[in-house]
């Protein structure tokens, strides 16, 4: 019998929840904290996936959960993504709240059938009789010199599916609050975690169990001259770009979309109505990306406010190159500054 066979204490040790002390945490720690809080608050929340229990996840997102909540609620599954998504649908229909981890977004594609054909439409097909309150978490995105298939950003594939939410945090605070809300949400949520920034910054957060809304963008910086819209890891380059623009006398508004689908278009439109100019920044490939949808929606609703064409800073329409050339694919703050200056130069 190996160590994995040791059955964790099934009697949950109810630690009193300390909501008063601030924790200074990274995004991955915030995710871990939210998982603990959600499992603590609701016995129906279960966690499953590859290497999530004994190992605590390859990125350590689920560390400590098995010891705390036991192997019945924190499950190492066999290596099978189709299965992970499929059993999550079944569990959710039985009023559990499965939070499944797909180890990397590059391995999420096998789950598509269950997401498109079942999770996203179970409520609709049964006219509300069966529902699917499941969360599928996956680390995604490039910039960490990972092996092939470990670096793509394919959030648009999911944003295109009616009936699911797609949520992407870009800071510890939003990771904590958005994940809690995703787990509490009565419908399926794809929760994509930009792994490049898992450990990039620390923020002070309170483990108060309070979620953040899933239907709003987050304005991170107010500005007058141009609106910079992004999500995920690129929010950081976008904020850096705003700093650089500020040094050049340009006041840029920065918005983290955060909830890719459904999209809070009102906040985006209001900002562009104010600034008249807009650059959308996505790490993903250009063609049919989320930026294209935002672009279309803004021009539909704010056409008369626009003083320049909306610009996009995106990846190329190629796969993410193997690591030696990853740098060619990734955009930097100066690429964003260049696009902004170009947009501002349009008379």
């Amino acid at each position, binding site marked *: 019998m*190996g*160590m*994995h066979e040791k059955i964790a204490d099934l009697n949950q040790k109810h630690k009193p929840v300390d909501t008063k002390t601030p924790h200074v945490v990274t995004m991955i720690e915030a995710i871990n904290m939210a998982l603990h809080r959600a499992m603590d608050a609701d016995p129906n929340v279960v966690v499953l996936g*590859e*290497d999530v229990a*004994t*190992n*605590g996840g*390859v990125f350590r997102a689920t560390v400590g959960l098995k010891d705390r909540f036991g192997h019945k609620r924190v499950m*190492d599954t*066999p*290596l*099978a*993504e*189709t*299965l992970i998504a499929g059993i999550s649908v079944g569990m959710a229909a039985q009023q559990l709240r499965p939070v499944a981890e797909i180890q990397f977004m*590059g*391995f999420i594609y*096998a789950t598509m059938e269950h997401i498109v054909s079942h999770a996203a439409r179970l409520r609709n097909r049964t006219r509300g009789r069966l529902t699917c309150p499941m969360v599928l978490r996956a680390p995604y995105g490039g910039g960490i*010199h*990972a*092996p*092939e*298939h*470990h670096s793509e950003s394919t959030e648009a594939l999911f944003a295109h599916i009616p009936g699911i939410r797609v949520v992407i945090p870009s800071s510890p605070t939003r990771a904590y609050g958005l994940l809690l809300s995703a787990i509490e949400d009565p419908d399926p949520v794809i929760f994509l975690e930009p792994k490049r920034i898992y450990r990039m910054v620390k923020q002070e957060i309170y483990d108060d169990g309070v979620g953040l809304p899933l239907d709003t963008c987050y304005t991170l910086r107010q500005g007058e001259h141009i609106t910079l819209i992004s999500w995920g890891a690129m929010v950081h380059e976008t904020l850096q770009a705003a700093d650089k623009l500020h040094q050049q006398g340009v006041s840029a508004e920065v918005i983290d979309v955060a909830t890719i689908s459904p999209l809070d278009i009102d906040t985006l439109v209001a900002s562009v109505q104010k600034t008249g100019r807009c650059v959308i920044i996505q790490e993903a490939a*250009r*063609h049919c990306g989320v930026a294209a949808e935002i672009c279309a929606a803004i021009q539909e609703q704010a056409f008369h406010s626009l003083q320049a064409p909306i610009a996009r800073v995106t990846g*190329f*329409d*190629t796969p993410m*190159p*193997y*690591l*030696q*050339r*990853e*740098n*060619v*694919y990734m955009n930097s703050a100066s*690429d964003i500054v260049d696009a902004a200056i170009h947009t501002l130069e349009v008379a």
Partner: protein
Amino acid sequence: MQYTKTPYQQKQMIDANGAVVGSLPESVSDELLLKSYRTMVMIRTFDQRVVALQRTGQMGTYASCLGQEAIGTGIGLALKKDDVFLPYYRDQATQYLRDIPLHQQMQYWGGNEWANHFSGIAQQDFPNCVPIATQVTHAAGVASAMKIRGEKRCSLVTCGEGATSRGDFYEAMNLVGVWQLPMVMVVNNNQWAISVPRNIQTGAETIAQKAVAAGIEGFQVDGNDVCAVYDAVRYAVNKAHSGKGGTLIEAVSYRLGDHTTADDATRYRSHEEVNEAWKREPIKRLQTYLHASDLWDEDQEQALQEHCKQEVEQAVKTYLSQPAQPVADLFDYLFEETPAHLALQKQRALEKMARLGGK
């Protein structure tokens, strides 16, 4: 557990102490034993060097094959040049035996697509496969093409035991049975799928018995005994070539290293277990046998170690001196003819590189 379909019986030929079990079959010549030994020592030298390169920031994440050298070596020696090999990612030995140079294997883990541009006998081989088990379905497709054309060839695919939990594995194996495909499936059962041990991966007593439901022959061999692996693969390849269908071989071994250089196995398994496994590793036992059979002496051992070091150092040099590929290559191989929008993006990428100083 008994399976009805196991005409292949010999599961071990040289045991963990280097003693012959029964007698060696004719297929296993002295020459073959020596070649196996040389290959395994070369691959272990290579493997340790690549891990060291990763630790010093000169290599991407690397999946070591430490402890599994006999499987790749046995396959590489048994497979014929016209067969098609579809690897997973611990097949360094097979790839080496299919003439994919060591520096080219380094280039793969170092992050350059040109590493997959094989030539010679590997011309039709697939590159390493990272999305687990998907290669097994491709192997069934390759075997289908061979069968449709009536060729005397086969596909050989490898995967880990964790991979056998995926639909792709079962779906492909089912087809091998129902279409009688000329295909050999070798499962590297190294007991661990990252942190998930064999006994919580499947309720089946063996991986080999999964073949029963697909209607194909399946059996276990000692995956640390290069002779047993070689002879089993040779048997399965011959069977496929003669139109008698597919085989599932479970090569029982142990992953002596971390899952990859990004993993820390001490988090989930004990030192005792790993130390025990070292006693069964593939190289030492063959060395013992070779010494005992007067096929090998200390001088030869020293010369071999020296040779392997030199070859690997030469490969490191070649690898480190290769420039990153031209940026245009990222765009020029997506389609046979590059569409207009990509040509424009290529232009942008080249300008960006120029701005970055061409690095």
